[in-house]
């Protein structure tokens, strides 16, 4: 497997301090955004397309749950507890935390070459073949090799780049488009998305895509060795090379089984 990163120095931490710190702050902020976002959706679990939408208009789709407001006809004859107040306060505070952390990560990653060295695929990795090789390896449940202990493979690179340069910017844009005040200064922010309700629906879908990434990401971390991956992202420490099984025969069958 050819990978992009410099694997020359096995003493170097798996992830730099900037990556580790911003990773966990983003994780906390994202969790807060997810929980508060879900609470806000509950107050009107109907989605529309275009500029306007309300209970007297046909929705694009409806989430089949009860609402926290009795003005929304959901088919359920009970109303969920209203948690919008703190959810909204938390949502916007966590959004600021995520955006500022993202800015810090983005700027330092440009300056220290993290994007160039670790995330942008090397020429050899910019092929479908390289991509499918990784997928095939995942499907065989082959363990990560020594190179992968220090770098990202082609699929990881595409996944992380998509999150950093597509999903995060999209979720910020679609979220900002829901601010009536921001829209007064930058009307294109909402108009380009097809209107306020389209922006809200897109915000919901992009959040869903981020949630999907989170689920796959956590699953992959567990499959590839939860302890060592967590250690790498917390202390930066890497397992000694001999501790990493190099052939499928040594692969632990149970993904959660500990490897030391």
């Amino acid at each position: 497997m050819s990978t992009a990163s410099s694997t020359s120095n096995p003493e170097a931490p798996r992830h730099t301090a900037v990556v580790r710190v911003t990773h966990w702050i983003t994780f906390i902020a994202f969790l807060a955004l997810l929980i508060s976002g879900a609470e806000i959706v509950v107050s009107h679990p109907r989605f529309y397309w275009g500029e306007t939408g309300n209970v007297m208009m046909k929705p694009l789709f409806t989430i089949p749950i009860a609402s926290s407001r009795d003005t929304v006809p959901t088919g359920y004859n009970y109303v969920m507890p209203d948690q919008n107040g703190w959810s909204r306060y938390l949502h916007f505070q966590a959004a600021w935390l995520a955006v500022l952390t993202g800015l810090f990560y983005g700027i330092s990653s440009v300056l220290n070459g993290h994007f160039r060295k670790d995330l942008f695929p090397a020429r050899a990795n910019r092929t479908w073949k390289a991509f499918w090789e990784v997928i095939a390896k995942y499907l065989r449940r082959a363990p990560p090799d020594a190179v992968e202990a220090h770098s990202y493979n082609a699929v990881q690179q595409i996944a992380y780049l998509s999150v950093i340069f597509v999903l995060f910017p999209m979720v910020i844009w679609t979220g900002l488009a829901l601010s009536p005040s921001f829209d007064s200064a930058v009307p294109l922010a909402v108009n380009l998305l097809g209107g306020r309700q389209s922006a809200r629906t897109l915000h919901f879908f992009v959040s869903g895509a981020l949630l999907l990434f989170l689920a796959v990401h956590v699953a992959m971390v567990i499959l590839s060795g939860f302890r060592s991956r967590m250690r790498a992202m917390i202390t930066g420490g890497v397992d000694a090379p001999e501790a990493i099984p190099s052939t499928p025969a040594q692969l632990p069958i149970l993904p959660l089984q500990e490897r030391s």
Partner: protein
Amino acid sequence: MKSITRRRLITTGIAATAGVAGLAVADRLAQRYGLVPPDGCGVYGPGETLTYAAQRLLTRHSLAREFSRGMISKTPFANETAPPSDEFKVHQAAGFKDWRLAIDGMVARPGSFSIADIKSLPFKSQITEIACEEGWSYIAEWIGTPLVEVLREAGVSPQARYVVYYSIQKDWWESVDMADALHPQTILTWGMNDGDLPVGFGGPLRLRVPRQLGYKSVKYIIRMTVTDSLKSFGKGLGSASPEAGYSWYAGI
């Protein structure tokens, strides 16, 4: 080793001092230029202050989007309100002819305006969207007198920083800063879609603040107080919304 530790200690010390000093300066500047919202305290204070300060630097004068007549919603939704008070019912039975809007506080000429007085001032029509914090929205034509006209009539003080406004309904009051109070699209609305403003939508008088979420557009306005501090109003958080757990600044 020792020198590195010392160097590190000194750098960290300087960075920490600079950080604290920077925050203190930022806080002082934010207070000075009115960039801290009245509910900019407590756990969510930092987020609220960042939002409000960013919006005030970016959107002090910007105009809410206006739409074409064809975009007016066929089915606007009149959000539910608490059952009307007896006082309101009396006014409604009399066709709102005795409805008055009182203005006091930091104005040269405190007094009150009837709906007819308000209508006699220059008025305008604007087609804007109203969006609820729940997520739904509609577009309507709102006809009314810009709040700035009424404030000018009452002789608002240059030291004024906020306008507090009250519904006839109990415990329903809000406030906006002068950027929104003097904004040309902030209108004391008495007409909607070519007719009188229906009671369900806030008639006879509703303050429409189109650059903020619907809950700032309080229905059934009867009183306004111009002030330079919100500390003595309610719990001092700016309006009834933060007291109920909702953000004071609803421009997001």
